């Protein structure tokens, strides 16, 4: 049976820091639902008021179709979008805002890469390397492009603890590798992947390096120069921005060399009855009218993250992750997946309760006002490799606090009690 103590053994200073929450007041949904412990941040973030206000401000003060008008309102709408592009670029250390292509989400960004880069460079006998950690978004586009081109998909495997060895990297990435596409931070296990080391090997083999930054960009400082990658995909909704806005960063010369993905309005310079001349990067990849208000608000969300600062974000999320891990460790009926070191989880903890299906756990937690994710987390090959079909996942963000963790742990005890006739 669980210990009654739900206070984790955190260092006092750390516990004191996450007991306070200077951020919660900025998030209207959290303020409006004081009974809610929202621990599904890896699925989507909550949005601060400044993001919601920015979206409204766009429609109230600058709404016009960006790029299509020669009047001042349209110029303003265009400027709002370009301001966001500059923020996106700055956040990941891009050398120019032109290297940011707006998409709908990270999935679309990765599809763009697979359909353009993949179909340009892959031929029969070539290899694409991904890892077993991948979200389906960074798996299925590559499965599909391999089917079309005759290339082979190869998999990098970490140790059970979640670490990739030099030997594994060397054995999997070789002369036949043309593209390595890898997540920077696992959405299931929370640990960071050594992208720079993997990219170094890929470079030696002459392969392109694509990074799925959907989980990393909102939580750790990301520098595309330090990663030495060619392309990086991420989405706004996990980084405090609206749904439906994503980005693809690419090296300018590579983006210029790639063919367009979607075609139509906005992405052309000139059109005749016979063909078209593509617009310059990044417009070449942005067919149709963009969600300008969403993009503008997404930029405001990223600026908010910068203001909080990644050092503070990381410290809080690691402390919250440790509180989650240590609380679960006190409950012998809970199995936690991934690294044993709590600090390696970035606040993301996947677990199972002995004899209870994850969907039952999440339904019971929901009844206690605790929101977590249960299922395969869009990473079915990973879960199969872990030897399970589904897990529960609690994922913290810097605007969570110790009371969220305590409510979560109490609700875990409720699950165990209910299933053992103790409630």
């Amino acid at each position, binding site marked *: 049976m669980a210990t009654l103590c739900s206070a984790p053994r955190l260092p006092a200073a750390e516990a004191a820091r996450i007991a306070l929450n200077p951020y919660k007041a900025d998030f209207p949904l959290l303020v409006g639902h004081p009974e809610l412990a929202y621990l599904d941040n890896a699925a989507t973030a909550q949005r601060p008021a400044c993001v919601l206000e920015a979206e409204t401000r766009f429609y109230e003060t600058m709404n016009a179709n960006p790029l299509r008008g020669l009047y001042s309102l349209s110029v303003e709408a265009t400027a709002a979008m370009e301001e966001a592009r500059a923020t996106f670029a700055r956040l990941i250390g891009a050398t120019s805002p032109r290297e940011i292509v707006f998409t709908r989400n990270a999935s679309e960004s990765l599809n763009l890469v697979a359909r353009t880069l993949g179909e340009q460079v892959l031929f029969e006998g070539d290899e694409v390397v991904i890892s077993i950690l991948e979200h389906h978004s960074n798996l299925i586009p590559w499965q599909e492009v391999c089917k079309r081109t005759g290339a082979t998909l190869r998999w990098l495997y970490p140790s059970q603890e979640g670490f990739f060895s030099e030997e594994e990297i060397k054995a999997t990435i070789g002369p036949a590798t043309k593209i390595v596409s890898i997540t920077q931070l696992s*959405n299931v296990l929370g640990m960071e992947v050594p992208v720079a080391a993997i990219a170094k090997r890929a470079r030696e083999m002459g392969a392109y390096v694509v990074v799925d930054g959907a989980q990393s960009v909102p939580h750790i400082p990301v520098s595309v120069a330090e990663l030495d990658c060619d392309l990086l995909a991420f989405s706004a909704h*996990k980084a405090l921005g609206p749904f439906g806005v994503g980005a693809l960063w690419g090296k300018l010369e590579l983006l210029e060399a790639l063919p367009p993905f979607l075609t139509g309005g906005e992405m052309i310079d000139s059109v005749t009855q016979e063909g078209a001349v593509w617009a310059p990067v990044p417009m070449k990849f942005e067919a149709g009218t963009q969600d300008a208000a969403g993009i503008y608000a997404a930029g405001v969300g990223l600026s908010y993250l910068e203001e909080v600062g990644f050092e503070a974000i990381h410290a809080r999320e690691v402390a919250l992750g440790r509180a989650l891990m240590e609380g679960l460790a006190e409950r012998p009926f809970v199995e936690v997946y991934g690294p044993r070191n709590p600090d390696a989880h970035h606040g993301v903890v996947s677990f199972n309760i002995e004899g209870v299906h994850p969907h039952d756990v999440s*339904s019971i937690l929901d009844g206690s006002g605790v929101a977590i994710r249960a299922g*395969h987390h*869009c990473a079915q090959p990973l879960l199969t490799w872990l030897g399970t079909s589904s897990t529960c996942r609690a994922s913290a963000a810097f605007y969570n606090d110790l009371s969220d963790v305590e409510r979560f742990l109490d609700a875990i005890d409720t699950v165990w009690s209910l*299933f053992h006739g103790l409630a």
Partner: protein
Amino acid sequence: MASPNQLYTPALLEHVQHPDWNFELKDATCSHEGVNPSCGDDLTIHARLANDGTIAEVSWTGEGCAVSKGSADMMADLMVGLTPAEAKELCVTFGELVRGELSAEDAEEELDEAACLASIAHMPARVKCAELAWRTMDEMLSGATEPSSTEDGLVPSAGDLG
């Protein structure tokens, strides 16, 4: 937010922890598998028909969440003595209950304690768990040969977000 105890009632949990009908029926007239691929629920329903054509016994085997297993065990209780046509009707009634088209009060006479699953209507992603055994039974009695699935696009899957 629904209270967990509305769904995870002592009655449901008793059927999960101490099921009456969780075994393979040796002289089954028919057996049929039902799956919810995104949940991992995978149940097989077995039924033995008496000489007069009524259902003599129903059992279930397999793995799934508490809702799918408890619901299967409650269903097995209710099926004994029904004609296949009556059993199919009861499956339809149960479907109406868990989709919120029928109140627990109106269903209680026919569905007995299985009426306690009415509160699942507020959890759309879990409806398919409650329905699995019943859909499988219904399709078995209709002579289906392919495994049944309650993931036919009518309900959102709890496993599909990043």
